[in-house]
């Protein structure tokens, strides 16, 4: 938000309008005094100086969060930004999910109302402090006018305006009516970071209480009077169609009320999920498998391999890398492959919809409320104000809830159902009908001089374009998907002449690829950090020293590498079967380095035992959240690196549930030590870089332990 936005008089008007629309329909719920999280339930607070803040006559402060909480801690760090400048106790702030609005609640670092790309703090570090400061200035001015003193002789603390010389005090609640009549200041001064009381100090999360007593509400917890439950089956093959269902048998199941047929899906509607599941089994849907009936992984990987032999769209070109490599003293080359991955959020896909005479209401957890609203408008022909999105806490996002396919499905079903219906995906449906992280195929080669220093570097990436699907082909630049070449085109190391190009190769029609935690940096970091290790080995140099020498213009990167290495005891001897690997991720505005210590058993079992992570993300808002996100990203990345793989056979996904799509469990989780580097650089994102970093750190450790280079993920049984 800019100062111009702060001054916009339409804001209060909008909030009032929301209250009028939302009033009777929405469910609010209170949890606990500390960290109250509410569904969008606009109160008639008299003081709403901007889209994010409302203060009632009781003094109660409500923060309407533009970004959604999906575990990353944003419902604590964003209120901290507000509270720092508003001068209120952050623990007393109530939090509401924002309604869909790509303008009011736009993430300025992205351009739409999107929680993703590790950009919540980066987008709102300035705007929310400004929002808090503007409100404080108005409250202080209101008090000064009441007392007939100069505002500069007053200050605010803990929700009270104080006139120090006379000892007079007025709580914010007593000032809201007067403050609301004042102009919103055009320009506000912000605290010097040295004055921060909250920002930079670990603060307990505000959303924990409801998450330990079962009262926190996720989309799947929506309960409405007369609500029915629908279980969904979509065509098991990509691009297949529904040809028959046994509707009579489905309806014979007690509790089943309806079978909804769509072209490529069927849903059974019942009074509870159990009946709906039984009804779906009884319906025994029959499918025309469509054009992909014979497509399997060998076809898909074969296409990628062939694609990677064609010259691609150029993402970076400096010098004549091909010629330099051809005459280099030594050449190293490799092919890296990374699999399709599912998101497997703990909360399976679900969406609750009620079509009404004047539009529709949608209850769900989404990372993109505005885009979801637009998709439903397109599907139904309804107007914006008729599509009311009620967001919830997300039971995991990881990119899955950046897409609205589940909402479109649910609305298609609800259009045929009378009254509210909750559409639930079984775990099997969730795994088999995800939008997957692309399968990538990278060819990379380098030339080294006689001392082992790289003099030429050539890297070609082949894979599907998420940018083209998500934003449209127009979002590509000269054929380059900027996400697909992330961490490769902007390689931080000095490698001499460099050529990076990209070949778009899509999977079978009907199979879609999407954002997955760490996005392009996860693909790129695995390849370049593994290959950097290969070069160090070829040059017979220490992988840490080799990297440091090639990063002389990157002091923050050198620093995190040195810290992680030092904490890990880098260089100290290890037992046979043990190894240490290091990797660096510069991404999302942050610098992360990790060392993994691994034991490879005689049977080939790979066990990462200890992990050191150094992170420099610039200004720290809530340091404990940064730690938690490092732990989280590491374990998420280890799940994928060790086990994660979605494979296609005869046009369908082979994996079904957590039995065959394995994720890390308690006994596999390593000890994790996180070191935070303190400075006042611009804030960087922390939700994703640890995921990107850990995969090559692990496989480099495996190489150190056993001399086997993992060039294809997951590790799975490659050491057995």
């Amino acid at each position, binding site marked *: 938000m800019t100062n111009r936005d702060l001054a916009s008089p339409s804001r209060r008007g909008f909030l009032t309008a929301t209250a009028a629309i939302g009033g009777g329909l929405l469910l609010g719920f209170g949890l606990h005094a500390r960290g109250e999280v509410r569904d969008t339930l606009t109160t008639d607070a008299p003081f709403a100086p901007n889209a994010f803040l409302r203060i009632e006559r009781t003094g109660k402060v409500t923060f309407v969060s533009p970004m959604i909480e999906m575990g990353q801690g944003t419902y604590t760090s964003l209120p901290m930004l507000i509270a720092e400048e508003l001068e209120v106790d952050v623990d007393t702030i109530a939090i509401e999910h924002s309604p869909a609005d790509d303008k009011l609640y736009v993430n300025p670092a992205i351009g739409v109302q999107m929680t993703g790309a590790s950009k919540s703090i980066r987008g709102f570090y300035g705007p929310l402090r400004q929002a808090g400061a503007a409100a404080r200035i108005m409250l202080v001015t209101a008090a000064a006018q009441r007392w007939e003193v100069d505002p500069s002789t007053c200050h605010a603390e803990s929700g009270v305006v104080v006139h120090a010389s006379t000892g007079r005090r007025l709580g914010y609640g007593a000032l809201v009516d007067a403050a609301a009549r004042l102009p919103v200041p055009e320009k506000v001064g912000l605290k010097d970071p040295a004055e921060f009381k909250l920002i930079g100090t670990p603060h307990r999360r505000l959303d924990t209480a409801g998450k330990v007593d079962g009262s926190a509400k996720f989309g799947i917890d929506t309960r409405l009077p007369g609500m029915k439950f629908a279980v969904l089956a979509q065509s098991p093959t990509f691009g297949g169609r529904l040809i028959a269902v046994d509707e009579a048998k489905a309806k014979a199941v007690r509790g089943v009320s309806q079978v909804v047929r769509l072209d490529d899906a069927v849903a059974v509607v019942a009074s509870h999920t159990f009946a709906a599941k039984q009804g779906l089994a009884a319906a025994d849907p029959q499918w025309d498998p469509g054009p992909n009936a014979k497509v399997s992984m060998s076809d898909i990987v074969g296409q990628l391999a062939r694609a990677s032999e064609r010259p691609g769209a150029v993402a970076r070109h400096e010098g004549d890398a091909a010629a330099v490599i051809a005459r280099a003293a030594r050449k190293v080359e490799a092919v890296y492959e990374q699999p399709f991955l599912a998101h497997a959020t703990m909360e*399976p896909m679900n969406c609750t919809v009620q079509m009404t005479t004047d539009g529709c209401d949608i209850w769900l957890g989404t990372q993109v409320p505005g885009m979801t609203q637009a998709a439903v408008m397109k599907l139904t022909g309804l107007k914006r104000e008729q599509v009311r999105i009620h967001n919830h806490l997300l*039971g995991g996002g990881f990119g899955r809830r950046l897409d609205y396919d589940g909402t479109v499905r649910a609305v298609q079903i609800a259009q045929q159902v009378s009254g509210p219906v909750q559409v639930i995906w079984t775990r099997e449906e969730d795994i088999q009908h995800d939008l997957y992280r692309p399968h990538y195929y990278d060819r990379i080669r380098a030339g080294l001089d006689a001392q082992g220093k790289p003099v030429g570097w050539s890297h070609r990436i082949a894979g599907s374009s998420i940018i083209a699907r998500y934003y449209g082909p127009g979002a590509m630049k000269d054929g380059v998907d900027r996400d697909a070449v992330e961490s490769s085109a902007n390689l931080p190391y000095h490698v001499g002449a460099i050529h990076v190009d990209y070949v778009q190769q899509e999977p079978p029609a009907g199979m879609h690829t999407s954002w997955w935690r760490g996005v392009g940096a996860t693909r790129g970091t695995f390849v370049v950090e593994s290959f950097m290790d290969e070069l160090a080995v070829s040059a017979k140099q220490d992988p840490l020293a080799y990297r440091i020498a090639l990063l002389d213009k990157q002091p923050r990167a050198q620093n995190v590498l040195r810290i992680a290495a030092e904490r890990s005891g880098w260089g100290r001897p290890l037992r046979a079967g043990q190894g240490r690997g290091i990797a660096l991720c510069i991404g999302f505005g942050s610098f992360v380095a990790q060392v993994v210590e691994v034991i490879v058993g005689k049977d080939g079992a790979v066990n990462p035992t200890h992990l050191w992570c150094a992170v420099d993300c610039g200004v720290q808002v809530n340091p404990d959240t940064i730690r938690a996100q490092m732990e989280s990203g*590491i374990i998420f990345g280890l799940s994928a690196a060790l086990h994660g793989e979605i494979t296609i056979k005869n046009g369908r996904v082979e994996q079904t549930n957590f*039995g065959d799509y394995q994720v890390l469990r308690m006994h596999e989780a390593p000890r994790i030590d996180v070191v935070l580097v303190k400075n006042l650089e611009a804030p960087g994102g922390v939700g994703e870089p640890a995921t990107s970093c850990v995969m090559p750190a692990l496989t480099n450790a495996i190489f150190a332990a056993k001399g086997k280079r993992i060039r294809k993920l997951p590790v799975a049984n490659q050491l057995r």
Partner: protein
Amino acid sequence: MVTLNVNGSLRNLDIPDDMPLLWALRDVLNMTGTKFGCGQGLCGACTIHIDGHPMRSCLATVSIAIGKRITTIEGIGATPEGKRVQEAWLALDVPQCGYCQSGQIMSAAALLAESPKPSDANIDERMAGNICRCGTYPRIRAAIKQAAGVKEA
């Protein structure tokens, strides 16, 4: 009609007795703290206690709970172990997205009831059935130890 004892309250329900308890709790009683995760007993999100023993409610049917005590996340705070576990979870800020945490807490409370001073091996064994995609395992381990009053290694 069946009668279930849920967190000390007797509830008469018109439901089939082969219905998994998960759906009886969530869809019939509107007790949504117990979570659906996988439907196959693979993830632990739906863990409840039946007569104090941890069970996966996506598999355990209504019939096996008749005449027994069902405890859910909404009621576990009334037990000494449950209360200690919830307090430790709060103190160490264990949850992230929070969706799996009901099941984690139910498994942890059952573990402490059985092994008041659990070893790391106990924790591995009794918590391995509960998946967390946010990677809160290090904090879960630390919180269990805090609740048990045993030192972190």
